[in-house]
């Protein structure tokens, strides 16, 4: 093992940890699952450091890894990632602070969950991780044009589904405007 590797990994880990935690928490139903996804994502990254791109692209690559980990995780539920259990309590805190409660928001969440995985992921990467089209293209390994078209369709399908569910008012987002760091 070369000596540079751990130091570089640690730098990426420090930079990305908070965002991967958030990514997982936003997508998993339980804090335990989210903790597993975080641990597995970074474990994969450690093993595949040779593929880890430099600079700002590292986080996009990690989002891509996390997405695949998440997909696999859903298929192999029931087995805990031993090393992730330490994160459970921290994750549980995030879940305790989750938005929710209002009936309307819950109704919207239901519609959102009914979208296809791909649609949800695109909308989420824009709204939650605040990635732009180019960054999404990098994370998902698609061309910018494909992302543009898919995103347009995803938004349209979400809007239509909301309308069909009788939800007309946009909830005033209680969340402060994002200060994206990308």
């Amino acid at each position, binding site marked *: 093992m070369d000596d540079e590797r751990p130091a570089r990994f640690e730098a990426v880990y420090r930079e990305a940890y908070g965002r991967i935690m958030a990514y997982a928490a936003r997508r998993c139903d339980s804090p335990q699952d989210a903790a597993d996804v975080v641990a597995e994502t970074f474990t994969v990254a450690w093993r595949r450091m040779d593929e880890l791109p430099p600079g700002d692209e590292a986080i996009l690559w990690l989002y891509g890894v996390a997405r695949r980990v998440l997909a696999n995780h859903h298929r192999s539920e029931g087995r*805990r990632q031993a090393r992730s259990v330490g994160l459970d309590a921290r994750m549980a805190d995030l879940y305790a602070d989750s938005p929710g409660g209002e009936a309307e928001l819950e109704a919207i969440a239901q519609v959102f969950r009914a979208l296809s995985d791909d649609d949800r992921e695109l909308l989420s990467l824009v709204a939650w991780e605040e990635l732009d089209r180019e960054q999404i293209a990098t994370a998902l390994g698609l061309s910018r044009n494909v992302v543009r078209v898919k995103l347009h369709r995803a938004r349209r399908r979400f809007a239509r589904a909301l309308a069909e569910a009788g939800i007309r008012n946009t*909830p005033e987002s209680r969340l402060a405007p994002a200060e994206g760091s990308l």
Partner: protein
Amino acid sequence: MKNTDEIDATTRALARVAPGTPGGDPSDAEARALLAAITSEDPGTAAKTGTRAYRRPALGLAATVVLGAGAVVGPSLLENGSGVPASWAVTAADGMVTIKVRDFRDAAGLETRLRDLDVPAIVDFVPWGQRCREPRGRHVDDIPRGLYSLPENVPGEKRGWQMRINTKLFRPGQTFVWTISAPASGGSSSTSTYLMEGPVAPCEPVPRPTQKAVEQEFRTATLKGRSLEGLRVDEKTVGEVLPELRKRGRKVVFMTMVIPPGNPGGFGEGRTRTEPVGDDWIVWEAEENAKGVIRLLVTDRRYDKNPVYGGPRDAVITE
């Protein structure tokens, strides 16, 4: 609700962690324990060995205890001169069993007492530097949360350690497999803990694998009769300690300690490295090996108490 901004705002409102907000701080204890656990794994072999790699004793305490493997109490935690109270004590209340271990040779006695208290346990003593040949049985992967706690210091005592086991969480057919070890000279001790299901093979002692030559056989260097006798390094910064060691011409390596949440006393052995760490890192103790290499036990930040001793060094080392 038709335009793009509205749709995105609607999506934003659903985020569990607000957009633009991190889900965690990489300097949290859990975050650092995970980092240490991951980077202690050799990336080259990890992919081939799969989950087995998680069971390496070099993992942080937080991770190892939960997965049931190699909960290694740092030897210095228990190191002391004489006066071994040759007893262990177990108390039960409401299914919770608190185990205090002081004599790391009395495996049979500890096992009997545990079984009396409905803990399905196998306890083996192996000579220092050895372990039982693995695998002895099938490891349980989904260990119930709260089944057992981290080993920690016994309050008010300089020696021994204690941990808690919730006996109600064992499932039929599961066995708590302990290996305890201590050198003939007394002083240090270590334990590893596994949860297994089904039959468990008898312990066949084999030499404990060592990862790197530089990591073996380290012992506290600042005690009487050792090479750094009289030099205090505990709770100082790396920047304060290094010049003196360099002046003495010592080769120095660094071991990153993995501190369990809450810093209960004790630590996991993280990576040992030769390249320098930050001058502002904290040194908790210095060790030496037969070749005279000094290994500093370090963390990247200051803790409320010395994890090596579970408190001030002076409360443990009284020579």
